[in-house]
């Protein structure tokens, strides 16, 4: 190489070294979303689990209305299946591409707050949320007393029963106490000579975490117990109420009135389960799947251990919150306030918030009791009434940082009890040890 060459532009070697670096840098650079030019509208992204056509369509209505009436801030919705929702939050957040508005399951609130993903609601909005929603819905959307968003759909648990099967067993109505529940379960159970279940008296479902744990916690709350301590850091299952619930479930399985191996969602719809405990959203599915047979379905409050005991059940739900990493939090809260608190004229001439109208239009419940009463007053499904009433006394699902893991561990232990792997005492010991150890790591 000559000195003359050295003094002129970059050498071939330099170019060879620089090119891959430049290409790598260009490839790794994340695209910047939004023009950011002054005068251009702010585009907010809303990531939810409303991935089905019905839910997508329901959300599109108010979002289109907002976009048509607001020039400065536009909203774009994105949806993934519920099973992919938490993972999508994680991956996008880690990549710096989290949505401005998040729609998480309340069980994850503590986990998201601890990870610094959710932004606390501004004080005036938090006040508004506390005033406008039922206590269970507000608690589900809060961590340590701080509100993190607007509760959207609220789910409470109640007893579903098949009127025809109960009548055939000589029973007039739904059981109100555990003694009546057990008696009704044994009287309605039928099996063939090979041991195959023809009719389950009381359906205990091992379908997923929410079903398995949800029905058990609904019964636990009805007995006056709780899953975790008030601070959410340890289990409170090893109590008389806990022993009573697991004793009841173990007896039902051992006596053959419950068969956790059967898919309750399919079996109840086809008239092969007399009673089961589930959340309010199921009424909509049952109405569609069962057609005319839906008239056999009745819903009653979760039975209590003794006549005269105060009713209680479980409440779960979702919330709409703002991402802590959003560059437009004020605009995001403005949109959420418009969606969740402004009253508009809805079905049947009644007034309700846009979100409440959306929820009722898809057969779900909202955490606003006044909206629910207004929207389901005339011509609504009478089976929704017990779920609506339960909003007043339901206990929210624990939502601390390790709530999802605690729920999974509880589910594993419940299944171990149902299958006879563990006795009630062993199961309670195991839950206490596992949940306390694992959940303490999350704090």
């Amino acid at each position, binding site marked *: 190489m000559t000195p003359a060459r050295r003094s002129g532009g970059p050498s071939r*070697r330099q170019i*060879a*070294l620089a090119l*891959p670096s430049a290409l*790598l840098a260009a490839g790794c650079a994340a695209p910047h979303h939004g023009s950011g030019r002054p005068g251009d509208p702010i585009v907010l992204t809303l990531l939810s689990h409303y991935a089905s056509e019905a839910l997508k369509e329901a959300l599109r209505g108010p979002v289109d209305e907002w976009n048509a009436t607001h020039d400065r801030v536009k909203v774009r919705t994105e949806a993934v299946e519920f099973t992919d929702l*938490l*993972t999508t*939050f*994680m991956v996008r*957040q*880690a990549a710096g591409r989290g949505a401005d508005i998040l729609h998480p399951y309340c069980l994850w609130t503590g*986990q*998201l707050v*601890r*990870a*610094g*993903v959710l932004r606390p609601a501004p004080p005036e909005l938090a006040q508004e949320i506390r005033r406008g929603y039922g206590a269970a819905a507000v608690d589900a959307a809060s961590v340590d007393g701080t509100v993190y968003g607007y509760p959207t759909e609220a789910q409470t648990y109640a007893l579903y029963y098949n009127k025809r099967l109960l009548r055939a067993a000589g029973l007039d109505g739904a059981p109100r106490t555990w003694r009546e529940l057990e008696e009704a379960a044994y009287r309605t159970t039928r099996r063939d000579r*090979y*041991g*195959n*279940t023809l009719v389950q008296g009381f359906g205990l479902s*091992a379908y*997923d975490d929410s079903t398995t744990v949800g029905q058990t916690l609904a019964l636990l709350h009805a007995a006056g117990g709780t899953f975790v301590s008030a601070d959410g850091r340890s289990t409170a299952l090893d109590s008389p109420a806990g022993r009573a619930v697991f004793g009841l479930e173990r007896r039902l399985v051992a006596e053959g009135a419950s*068969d*956790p*191996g*059967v898919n309750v969602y399919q079996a109840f719809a086809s008239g092969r389960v007399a009673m089961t405990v589930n959340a309010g959203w199921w009424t909509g599915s049952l109405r569609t799947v069962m057609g005319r047979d839906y008239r056999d379905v009745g819903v009653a409050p979760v039975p209590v251990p003794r006549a005269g005991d105060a009713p209680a059940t479980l409440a779960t739900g979702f919330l709409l919150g703002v991402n802590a990493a959003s560059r437009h939090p004020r605009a995001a809260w403005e949109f959420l306030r418009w969606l969740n608190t402004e009253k508009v004229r809805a079905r049947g001439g009644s007034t309700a918030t846009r979100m409440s109208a959306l929820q009722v239009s898809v057969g779900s419940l909202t955490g606003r009791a006044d909206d629910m009463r207004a929207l389901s007053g005339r011509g609504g499904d009478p089976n929704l009434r017990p779920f609506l009433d339960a909003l007043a006394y339901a206990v929210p699902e624990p939502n601390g940082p*390790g709530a*999802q*893991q605690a729920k*999974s561990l509880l*589910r*594993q*232990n419940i*299944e*171990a009890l*149902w*299958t006879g*792997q*563990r006795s009630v005492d062993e199961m309670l010991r*195991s839950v206490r*040890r*596992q949940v306390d*150890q694992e959940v303490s*790591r*999350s704090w």
Partner: protein
Amino acid sequence: MVNALVPETAGRAPGPRAAEPGAGGLDRLRRRRRRQTVVAYLFLAPTLLFFAVFLVLPLGFALLLSLSRWSGFDLGDIDPVGPDNFAALFADGATFLTPVLTNTLLFALGTVALALAGSVLVATCIDKLRFQGLWRTLYFLPIVTTVVAVGNVWKYMYEPGGLVNGVLNALGLGSVAFLQDPDTALPAVVVVQAWASLGTAILVLTAGLKSIPGTYYEAAALDGAGPVTVFRRITLPLLRPSLLFVCVTQFLIGLQSFALIIVMTKGGPGNATDVAALEMYRQAFSYGDWGAASAAAFVLFAVVLAVTLAQLWVFRRTGEDA
């Protein structure tokens, strides 16, 4: 052909250059070598970059996470905790060692044993049949079928009113809650995994069978050896390289797989079918505990490495070099 990269050798004819001072020649040689090294690394750069980005970086990141706490959301929140995550995996009351790791080994062992026995049997039979391509295709079909479909079909077959129980009932036997009974759930899933792995194993073993020279069989026939003797003394020993390959790969797949389990049992009932890969997936993506998930991944890596080395050692001792 002259290789331009080969340095000058001492055997070359002496010329004017030989008269140059030795230090200058050495310098030139060094410079040329350095240039050659740089050029070589430049040619290697794309491959090295690929390995760095897709192997070294993730491995280093996983190692960092295994010694940290991270919820999976913000890279700035990685909090070093030392070996705590590893300690938690083996703490009193933790389920990772028992039943999770035990289930993982039983699952892999059961799958390999069944798949190996089944594939040897089927491959030997296919080798003696007409339309071998058709048979191989038929047995290969589960491989091209999605795990979700396979898992769901078998799940329905195992159900109390399903095909398997229907057959049992027709034989006058009582129903078995295959996937709901903790004693039968793991074996039931192992059978499905082994069935789904048969295709690949059969493909490898039929290729192995084809490579055995026919002269051995002719000699055995002349000596009057029966089919069992021929199989034990000729087929099996000469099939050993293929068997080793199937054994090692199936074991690795068995130790790391969890898709079928998620579809069929979700790790239940209780944690009767919970395996290490499923636990890692849950820890990371459901519980947001990436530290615990990464620590579990390294433990599983150690187990996989130990088992693979043990397999290679056993096969080498018996005279087979992989």
